[in-house]
């Protein structure tokens, strides 16, 4: 019989919860037995959704994708972590996210599917009402859903791009990846009226409620989706935090959603949008470089002004790591940086 240890979790909102975990089970499955739903997605050490930090105790961290795990001291992927003693873990989720039960599974219908340019599709789903007409749990801005290719067990996680609503409308921005299973289905077969299974909402990368800090959003490519959800909610709730969105792509041909961003600025007077192109044509009038470069450039001024900042990062691991490094180099605390990594499935 495998030994059992106690896992002490401290959440992002500084609350404590414990559960038992055997040495032959990973933290996510042991937590589930205790009705604690830790953030996770692939359960194979590939996606980074279950990232946490071990503060003390012994554990075995099994094989995983190095891009999914930041290099900080004690960093773990909970789906690959097996305790060897009692351990203390910090998770970036609020208590509310891990005690609200397992993610719901629902059926949704494709309402529209449009090409936004830049090789990206704007997918709009509508949840089909349940028996009592209920639309299932509401998501928080920044969270993701898992979408299943009809007739298969293949699921992919995508961040929601719209504000929470009670009409059951879910919007996504999905880059068509050559050879990607979900994006191939989306590109080749999916059509309005199709139904698919969805699971969620999930994820702990959410807008911090009601803070007074200035907000900085750094997004690479479709990493802009959760930022849009957050900004849409800010507009909806009339939150007046001074905000700046750094949206980066590789080339001008990769740009998308610029018209929608302009429209969003109209509803959020305190929002500035900095569109960054890494390798533009000669006529490019905007920022040349990565969104990390643009963020770091402005950050120095923000810090000099003594602004209290809150940073949201979403994109490929390189972008997230570089932005985190720049933020911490300029004195921002780890608590004020919130991130989500996009990793190929």
């Amino acid at each position, binding site marked *: 019989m495998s030994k059992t240890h106690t896992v002490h979790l401290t959440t992002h909102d500084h609350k404590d919860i414990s559960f038992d975990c055997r040495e032959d089970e990973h933290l996510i499955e042991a937590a589930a037995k205790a009705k604690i739903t830790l953030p996770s997605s692939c359960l194979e050490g590939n996606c980074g959704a279950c990232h946490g930090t071990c503060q003390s105790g012994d554990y075995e961290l099994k094989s995983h994708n190095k891009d999914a795990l930041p290099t900080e001291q004690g960093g773990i992927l909970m789906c690959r972590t097996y305790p060897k003693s009692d351990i203390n873990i910090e998770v970036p989720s609020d208590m*509310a996210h891990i005690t609200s039960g397992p993610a719901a599974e629902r059926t949704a219908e494709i309402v529209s599917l449009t090409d936004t340019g830049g090789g990206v599709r704007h997918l709009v789903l509508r949840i089909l009402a*349940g028996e009592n007409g209920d639309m299932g749990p509401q998501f928080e801005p920044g969270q993701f859903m898992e979408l299943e290719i009809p007739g298969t067990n293949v699921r992919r996680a995508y961040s929601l791009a719209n504000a*929470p609503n009670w009409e059951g409308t879910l919007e996504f921005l999905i880059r068509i990846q050559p050879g990607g299973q979900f994006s191939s289905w989306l590109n080749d077969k999916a059509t309005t009226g199709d139904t698919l299974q969805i699971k969620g909402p999930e994820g702990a990368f959410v807008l911090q409620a009601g803070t007074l800090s200035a907000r900085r959003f750094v997004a690479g490519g479709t990493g802009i989706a959760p930022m849009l959800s957050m900004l849409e909610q800010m507009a909806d709730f009339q939150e007046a935090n001074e905000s700046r969105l750094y949206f980066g792509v590789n080339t001008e041909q990769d740009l998308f959603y610029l018209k929608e961003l302009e429209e969003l600025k109209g509803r959020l007077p305190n929002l500035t949008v900095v569109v960054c192109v890494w390798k533009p044509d000669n006529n490019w009038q905007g920022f040349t470089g990565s969104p990390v470069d643009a963020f770091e450039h402005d950050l120095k001024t923000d810090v000099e002004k003594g602004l209290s900042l809150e940073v949201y990062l979403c994109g490929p691991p390189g972008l997230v790591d570089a932005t985190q490094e720049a933020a911490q180099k300029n004195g921002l605390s780890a608590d004020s940086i919130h991130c989500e990594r996009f990793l190929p499935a």
Partner: protein
Amino acid sequence: MFCYQCEQTARTDTSIGCNTERGNCGKDAQTSDLQDLLIYAVKGIAQYNVLARENGQADNEASAFILEAMFSTLTNVNFNAARFTTMLQQASSIRDRVKLAAGAKAANVEGPAAWVIPAEVGELLAQAEIAAVRAGEAEVGEDIIGLRAMILYGAKGVCAYAYHALMLEQQDDDVYAGIEKALSFLADNPTDVDALVGQALELGNVNLRVMEILDAGNKDKCGTPEPSQARVTPKAGKAILVSGHDMADLAELLKATEGKGVNVYTHGEMLPAHSYPELKKYDHLVGNYGTAWQNQQTEFADFPGPILMTSNCIIEPGPSYRQRIFTAGPVGWPGVRHIENHDFTTLIQAAKGTAGFAEDGEDKSITIGFGRDAVLGVAGTVVDAVKSGDIKHFFLVGGCDGADTGRNYYSDFVEQTPNDTVILTLGCAKYRFNDQDLGDIGGIPRLLDMGQCNDSYSAVQVAVALANAFECEVNDLPLSLVVSWFEQKAAAVLLTLLALNIKNIRLGPTLPAFITPAVLDVLVDAFDIKANTTPEADLEAILQKAS
């Protein structure tokens, strides 16, 4: 932060007040400091509006802003720091406007009126000390600070009630003048005990007028409360739950949901809605769900639809209902959707998007609606019953409820009252005993629910009418007041009772932390105010004295 405005404030052997990163109510230090600063800013508006009023140039829009700002700082009303930074900037521009109306004398006004309100949050918070409740305590001592706090917290309650009245389209220049005089008085950092006590009682009188216009507003908008049955079990169907105190919000919601296939339930202090003809005429106002405010985290989690919080008391929304609770009026919680201008579109969508009740509960109801018209309608019978000895004593047991276990005092007290006594009740404290069947005396129910804490005017009017009928003073009636307090509305009502020279009030479950032993001595000397002991001892003392 430092805050000791409510009954649940932190108390140890050596200290009082919440002074860590988060108060016992859940208010964080930043929000607490911003609330203090907002009060400081509205004191400045009041200073100028007192002068403007003298010039015949009173700015009643500024007065209305003072009501909302003060109400927002009550316990369990607004926890959203961002709303306070917005209101501070509004206060700045309103104060500039009122200063112009104040004329030449404005140039000589000092203190909050002259404070330069920073636009940047960090700079604002850096100045929190000037607005702290205990600022200057080292110089003037804790008794003076306590008396100032009693006026400030009483003024918050007065403003809250006046805001409710305003929502019912009732306002009064004398009320605005009285509130501004009190705030302006505080802005001068008064130190004279007699002047402080005098101002507190004057504010109590202002509150009596506020309660009168609030009573008139409720009647104008909703009709005269009448004895009614309120269903306390669910009906099958989509559902919205309305909590707080604001009947105007409920009236608008009932209109907006008419014919939409959504049932509306009351919660907590909204229960009396079922006794108002203009509200209960709606078939889809189907019942009351749950009990008093302190149970909301369980009750809201179990309710299968969205919740509208119209005023105090909100506490931290649990994860299972955080996405389906909405705030209105002065209420706020970070990350919770706020409804303005009675636009209930999203609330109704939420009702349709949630499950609602699958089936009817068993038929069960309670009797409510004994406002002063209903009670005085049987005044002759009541007077006869007293004269014949069938009714020996009246108790007014009411006020706020709360989570404190000491509040069982009130249910135990009511349970032990003799069968020849009548209990009048109001406020949410009644949930401790309003499901008890106490029987009747000659057809008059022994337990008479007079409504919300907002209906205190009704209780005062009944007491005055009985005193007239018996040709005596209120203090000579066989009537005892057993008041349960929690927050600042209760503080305002207490000042009103003292201003009316009502004596022998029993106050609990604990005395306010801002009432120092020396201040308590003053109140005991003047009004014989008492702290609760035990239900048995207090009942015995009351009835012994009465006999």
